[in-house]
């Protein structure tokens, strides 16, 4: 259910799922991905190394297959970036589940990068995974790159840090957040709980 590709922070994802009463297992093999009822795809670190690990284990193809079968998928942080076609981070070709590119946060004087800490998300589109969240709730971010889907309707939430960037995205049975719901207190846990209850369909 939670994919291990040696890109960090999966113990905290597993702990938060267990705190919600969910059964969570860590999978490292393609077979595990395809037999999961739903998949969380976390990650911190560099896009290049993450993609190399996914390919070596055959997880890239398994994820594409899981996506096309309609299994609900949730990418977190780096997991929200490498689902796109390409990342500016070391010019890395990515999974291409959703068309778009991962870009670097543009530096500007006085702006701290990485963007580290709590920030708001302006959710749009009424997606069930991002339901029942107060407007002024904040979520924990730590990143220097952000996902930019090609389709405007795939952007489900935006955040300000120097620029306005997509911080929640989704398409079909896929959702992803640039922030860490597993580290975002009660409202982050609510997002994970919403995902656990989601059937993978979202009528616009």
């Amino acid at each position: 259910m939670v994919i291990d590709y040696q890109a960090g922070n999966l113990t905290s994802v597993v702990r938060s799922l267990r705190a919600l009463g969910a059964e969570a297992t860590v999978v490292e093999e393609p077979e595990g991905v395809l037999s999961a009822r739903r998949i969380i795809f976390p990650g911190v670190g560099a896009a290049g190394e993450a993609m190399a690990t996914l390919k070596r284990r055959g997880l890239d193809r398994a994820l594409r297959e899981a996506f096309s079968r309609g299994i609900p998928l949730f990418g977190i942080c780096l997991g929200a970036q490498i689902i796109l076609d390409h990342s500016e981070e070391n010019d890395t070709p990515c999974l291409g589940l959703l068309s778009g590119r991962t870009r670097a946060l543009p530096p500007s004087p006085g702006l701290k990068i990485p963007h580290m800490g709590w920030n708001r998300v302006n959710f749009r589109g009424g997606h069930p995974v991002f339901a029942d969240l107060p407007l002024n709730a904040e979520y924990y971010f730590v990143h220097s790159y952000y996902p930019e889907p090609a389709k405007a309707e795939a952007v489900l939430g935006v955040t300000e840090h120097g620029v306005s960037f997509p911080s929640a995205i989704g398409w079909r049975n896929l959702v992803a957040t640039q922030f860490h719901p597993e580290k975002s207190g009660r409202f982050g846990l609510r997002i994970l709980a919403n995902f656990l209850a989601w059937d993978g369909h979202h009528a616009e």
Partner: protein
Amino acid sequence: MLSKRIIPCLDVRDGLTTKGIKFRNNIDIGDPVAMARQYYEDGADEIVFYDITASSDRRNIMIEVVRRVAREIFIPFSVGGGIRTLDDMREVLLAGAEKVSVNTAAVLNPQIIREGARAFGSQCIVLGMDVKRVTPSPKIPSGYEIVIHGGRTPMGLDALWWAREGERLGAGEICLNSIDADGTQEGYELTLTRLISEAVSIPVIASGGAGRPEHLAEVLTAGKADAALIASMIHYGTYTIQEIKEYLNHQGIPVRLIW
């Protein structure tokens, strides 16, 4: 807009929390897991644990604390104190901490920052700096010197240089503690904090000297800090995190107000 973070710091000795005044006369005041849970519910944005255990089985005691904390709170927390090797880092991160902080070990072996950042990512590596005010000299042009061993040993390193070097080596954040201000409850060292915060592009957590909410307001504006560490002012019930945040909000400082 990114909120300024308010971060309770818990000193832990033999699995119990303490609060040191000028690093001396520590007294035990509680269970770190229960306190972390309370501060999580009270609106802490992050929690810092600093292990000051001296005994040889310190690691096992602290790792057990980290494991228990990780089951209770769903915000980031970091662990510092006695982390010297990649294995020490790995153990703490696997037990559930989001970040590890290196201080003395990084001064004695700066490559630990680079190795840690490579193995676990920069976002995991906090460079802790203990800094003392000195007369400016050719060796310490900024007038702020790095000290180690809880403030007892001056290292002949300029704090400004060391902050930049730490960033270059891959630290993701700096926790900047003023030995002069620590334990006084008379306010953070604003000049030092601003100097370091303007010199690096990574976030800076101000530490040492917090006694009143005004002190946080000063260090988060004039001091240009991204986050403020607090201890005594909440450990003894003088203020709640909510009271501090409401005060900061009234001053126009962005803070996380609901949790």
